């Protein structure tokens, strides 16, 4: 029952969303009236990419294949998928002939590390604060935090990142304002390197965490305020259940459920926001890779990042969705 009603629809949706997303990636360059291959080539030239003749042929072949301009469209579409499923995203035009997957592989640990820690941290702290603020919504500190959140929440990630950057670049010079580690340092599992990474990622992380906290704080506060009015909470109170039990086992436990769904729904937004934050702080993750790809007109790399992101985000959303029934018995036994 649970498998048929919950698991199978999730998987179908997962596959369909990936299918639709990748198909869109395939068709976007074909929607345009001009020849995307020539366009990209001229763009590459305009940006001063020095290409040997051999590289140029390979690029033209690659482009023609990626854009689906060779053979029947169906063949190309099939080949496109076949390549993707082999994990082959083609080569970067600008850093020829480095495979796109290798570039993504280098940038990914930075982004994943930053994004996972900050998202989880923001979600946990925001929810804990929001839960108490919602329960004691009449108290002064609750209203105080809410007022701060009202100002921070509407800002996009990078605007907030810029504000922090200005503050820390001029007013408080505590943290480095750009880079991922000290210049010239070789990545390794040594303490100085890790220390340097943490030090450099402090500001980008802080900007994502504070903003995320404001969002989760506000939603959690509202959810708790509405859960407190639910009849099961009133009922427990009229049964003389101790306040501590009511807060933890009735209010917070139930208020957490929409927050888990909310996390899954907003992962896409958080991801996009984090990419731009990386650019603001020149943090060497996917965002900065994307920025360089755009500046260099490296369309294949952008396509690769997009395809990879579609896979990554939908998979994480699927995982959150699959974990959800562990928290909600109504879905587990229905």
């Amino acid at each position: 029952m649970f498998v048929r009603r919950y698991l199978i629809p999730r998987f179908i949706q997962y596959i369909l969303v990936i299918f639709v997303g990748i198909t869109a990636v395939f068709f976007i360059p074909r929607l345009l009236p001009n020849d995307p291959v020539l366009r990209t080539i001229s763009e590459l030239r305009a940006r001063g990419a020095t290409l040997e003749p051999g590289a140029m042929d390979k690029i033209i072949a690659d482009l023609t294949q990626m854009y689906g301009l060779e053979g029947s469209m169906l063949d190309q579409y099939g080949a496109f998928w076949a390549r993707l499923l082999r994990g082959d995203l083609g080569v970067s035009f600008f850093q020829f002939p480095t495979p796109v997957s290798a570039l993504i592989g280098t940038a990914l640990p930075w982004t994943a590390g930053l994004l996972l820690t900050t998202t989880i941290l923001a979600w946990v702290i925001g929810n804990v604060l929001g839960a108490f603020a919602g329960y004691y919504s009449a108290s002064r500190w609750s209203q105080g935090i809410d007022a701060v959140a009202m100002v921070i929440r509407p800002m996009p990630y990078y605007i907030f990142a810029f504000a922090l950057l200005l503050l820390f670049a001029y007013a408080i010079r505590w943290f480095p304002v750009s880079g991922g580690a000290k210049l010239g340092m070789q990545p390794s599992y040594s303490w100085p390197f890790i220390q340097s990474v943490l030090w450099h990622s402090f500001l980008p992380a802080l900007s994502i965490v504070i903003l995320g906290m404001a969002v989760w704080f506000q939603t959690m506060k509202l959810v708790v305020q509405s859960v407190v009015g639910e009849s099961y909470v009133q009922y427990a109170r009229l049964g003389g259940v101790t306040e501590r039990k009511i807060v933890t086992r009735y209010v917070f436990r139930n208020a957490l459920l929409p927050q888990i769904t909310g996390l899954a729904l907003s992962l896409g937004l958080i991801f996009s926001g984090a990419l731009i934050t990386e650019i603001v702080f020149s943090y060497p993750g996917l965002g900065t890779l994307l920025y360089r790809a755009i500046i260099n007109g490296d369309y294949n790399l952008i396509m690769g990042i997009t395809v990879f992101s579609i896979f990554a985000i939908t998979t994480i959303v699927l995982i959150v969705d699959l974990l959800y029934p562990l928290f909600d018995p109504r879905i587990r036994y229905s």
Partner: protein
Amino acid sequence: MKVFRDLLRDYRFFFGFWILVLMLVFASLSLFSPYDPGLWGEVPRDMRPSAEYWLGTDSNGQDIFWIATFAVRNSLTIALIAGLVSRLIAVTVGMVAGYLGGKSDRALMFVSDSLLVIPLFLMIVMLAMLIRDSMGVVSLGLLLAIFGWAWDARLIRSQILSLREREFTKTAVLSGTGTMRLVLNEYMPYSTPLIFSTLINNMAWAIGLEITLAILGLLDTSVPTLGTMLYWAISYQAVLLGRWWWVLTPIVLSILLFVALYWLSVSISEYLDPRRRIQRVGVG
């Protein structure tokens, strides 16, 4: 009018409203600008704020105060185009799906779910990448409109679903009112406030994406917007070179704009339904 007066008693609406009015005044100052926003080097470069150049000048040789008036005007125009056009799509789709239900409804739910999960922003980047030369105010507004309707169509759909269950729908249908007339005459009045509040949210989203795309260099960078101002500041390493005033102006203006729009929308949706304050403001 009474609704408006009630809303003004809410401090958030009050501030949001007046900040927005100030922004409009600021934007309309662009009509009196002594400089042409398309020309560079009209004033000395990299001047600190002074009596002559109120907010300083940038490395392109433009007066930041006057360029900012154009930037606010253009950013608001983009947001309005995106907001209004995507409202047309969202209202049509939401009403059709909500009223007809069945297959068209399920299809809409799927599209909207997908648009939420797929990193939409990267899709827009891919598109913008290919048409970057023609990314002016109007074309950007339209591009954002194409992507920005899904969530709001969903909200409108669920409202129509609840209206459809109400008594007056049955009465109207039984007395032979046409579907079009029913939707336009009976449902529209209920949905207008919701559509208005989604419009505000959508405008904030559009401004956010405009800035994002501009920072990435995907807009026509000769058109002054809040985003392109930041783009130039980043390209010239304004922060590292100590030209804080160049970054500060667009940042403060955007923060004011985002806060104002958010407060307006929170205040309005709370007024609509104090119990359903949980709402999403998408700013990417």
